[in-house]
């Protein structure tokens, strides 16, 4: 399968216990294999006490599959999934700091901001901070557009993603807490289905 060795963007979603040091345990799985993490977000999940990591890497299917298995092997990891971009809905947030005088003096800038759906989150006499959310290309575009008008600072958050087909983790967690867990919990879906990776 040639597609299995072709690099593309994968979003890895990891459900974990809330434990000091786990971030490092997961991070070294990538660094050991010299895989660059493009983006990493840790956040609460839909379940109290369970954390959710969202990790983006540019890698081949084969590599990502092995890495995800290594992640899932960690004691405090409940479950790890990986998805291509068409299987998820994702967003990133970007902040832009622009000098107020540029905005007030140049009508074009205002039009630009409207065009990109940016929202002002802080308005000061000397500067204004705008915010947009979207895919990387979208937030990048506004950054490029603002550059000639004295963009002072730019920062973008990690990707957060929702898996389209997922029905959440509540039901699964119940299975995890049982002493004799169901097949569903114990095995990675990709092991059961081989090529069809995600079937939650």
């Amino acid at each position: 399968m040639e597609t299995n060795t072709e690099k593309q963007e994968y979003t890895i979603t990891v459900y974990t216990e809330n434990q000091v040091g786990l971030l490092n345990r997961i991070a070294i799985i990538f660094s050991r294999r010299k895989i660059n993490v493009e983006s990493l977000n840790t956040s609460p999940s839909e379940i109290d006490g369970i954390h959710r990591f969202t990790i983006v890497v540019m890698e081949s299917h084969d590599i990502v599959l092995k890495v995800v298995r290594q992640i899932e092997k960690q004691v405090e990891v409940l479950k790890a999934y990986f998805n291509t971009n068409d299987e998820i809905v994702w967003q990133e947030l970007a902040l832009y700091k622009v000098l107020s005088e540029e905005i007030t003096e140049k009508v074009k800038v205002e039009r630009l901001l409207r065009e990109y759906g940016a929202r002002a989150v802080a308005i000061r006499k000397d500067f204004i901070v705008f915010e947009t959310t979207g895919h990387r290309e979208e937030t990048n575009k506004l950054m490029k557009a603002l550059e000639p008008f004295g963009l002072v600072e730019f920062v973008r958050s990690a990707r957060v993603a929702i898996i389209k087909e997922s029905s959440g983790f509540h039901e699964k967690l119940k299975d995890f807490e049982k002493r004799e867990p169901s097949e569903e919990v114990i095995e990675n879906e990709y092991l059961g289905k081989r090529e069809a990776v995600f079937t939650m």
Partner: protein
Amino acid sequence: MATKKLTGSQAVLEACIAEGADTIFGYPGGAIMPIYDALYDYNDQLKHILVRHEQGGIHAGQGYARTSGKVGVVFATSGPGATNLVTGLADAMIDSTPLVCITGQVFAHLLGTDAFQETDIINITMPVTKWNYQITDATEIPGILAKAFYLARSGRPGPVLIDISKNAQIQSFDYEGYTPCNHIRSYRPKPVIRKNYIDEAVALINNAKKPLVIFGQGVILGKAEKEFKKFIEKSGMPAAWTILGLSALPTDHPQNVGMLGMHGNYGPNVLTNECDVLIAVGMRFDDRVTGRLDKYAKQAKIIHLDIDPSEIDKNVKATVGVWGDCKETLPLLTLGIQQKDRSEWLKVFADYTQKEYDQCIKEEIYPTGKEMTMGEVIRIVNETTKGNAVMVTDVGQHQMVTCRYAKFNETRSNVTSGGLGTMGFGLPAAIGAKFGAQERTVIAVIGDGGIQMTIQEFGTIMQTGVDVKIMILNNQFLGMVRQWQELFNEKRYSFVDIQSPDYVMVAKAYGIAGAKVEDRKDLVNAIETMLAHKGSYMLEVMVGKENNVFPMVPQGCSVSEIRLK
């Protein structure tokens, strides 16, 4: 149970006792002093072996775990004590050895201040532990230690490190007794066995004309030696082993066709590329076993049994991945497979064995030259022990020769550093192996390089009086590297001509009896004297300086390109 006041240190020792740890290997130091102070009062319930270096302590713990099948327990202090464990942790991680290592740590309020003997051992050991955890409050101790022992021994075993700050060791708390752990919600030690994969595997085996079973330590770790034997016997399949699978099946079993990999036997290597179904049981397709992967068993359907799902398809893509505990999966396969006679197929192996014997083995174990060979030493050991001893090896040529030629009747008789290849492993591991199997003869076979890496453990032997037979096979070279330099670097012997001290005198200084053999006529007698000796004994045998281990699959070559000379 009524609560009573215990200190964190006492709780640590209570946990060790409750988990059945009868022997602890360790070395005291500032940050672990409260635990050692408590140990003073537990001396009647816990045997503590004072080693000479923490690395020796952890290798001893590994040896103990390997022969006893129990979790090895190791104590070390913070800072250098803890960092000295790292090699052993990495070794135990890659060879799936169950260990619980307890390290002292500076007071919690000093963490991160570069306090005396403070080191971030949790982060240092993260890649080489199955799990690790830092305790800064004594109330956590019973629960965390229960988890530690459970994780070390369950599923695919491995090393666990628990770092305990000094204040937690001193702190008194209401102790409510010890409850062993048997469930962690985020941890799945055993995958559920899926019937459809069992069925698929059974069908493949039943249709196979030339099936080959290759097995690893999983059979031993799963305590599935009997199940494994039944499985191969029912359908008459040849079975070859990895270096860590050695001794799971007796050497003289008619279906035991030998060792896999770089210095393995001729037949199993060549025929890996001729079998039609390859059945891998509890092994992980290490590169030393597979040789060049893109030319490895390409013609065969592959069935892979492993308890660790991440091993399936990791190196070799399986046709059927049977994940699960082989103690459970093997009987299911045995049930389904047909009784078969495969003597014709076994005969092919026998022919290869004969060829290998004629061209390679015979001269190694019955040498005609003047120089003694490692192979003949091991042959004489076999003749004397009848294959009943535990053989512990270090790493290098002597290790390959011992694994190739040593005879084994019983499981858990081969202790060696496989995955990590840790020189210096042999001597301390042999000490631990003896504590783990006190009724058995333990023979450590070590090269003149490896012995000098951990020779300080002679002191541990001296002080504990443990009975270990140490054989130094001295070829006056770092032999394996020299062999490679001869074969691949045009004999440019770069820094392999290691000198040795007078080992007999060194042993004597430690109160260990010993002898040196330089002439073949003394060899049999010397080995018999060593084995008959009451207590530890060190025998140095001067073997040929430039002998090579053959057969050999050169790095980057396919297993079928194995060289006999």
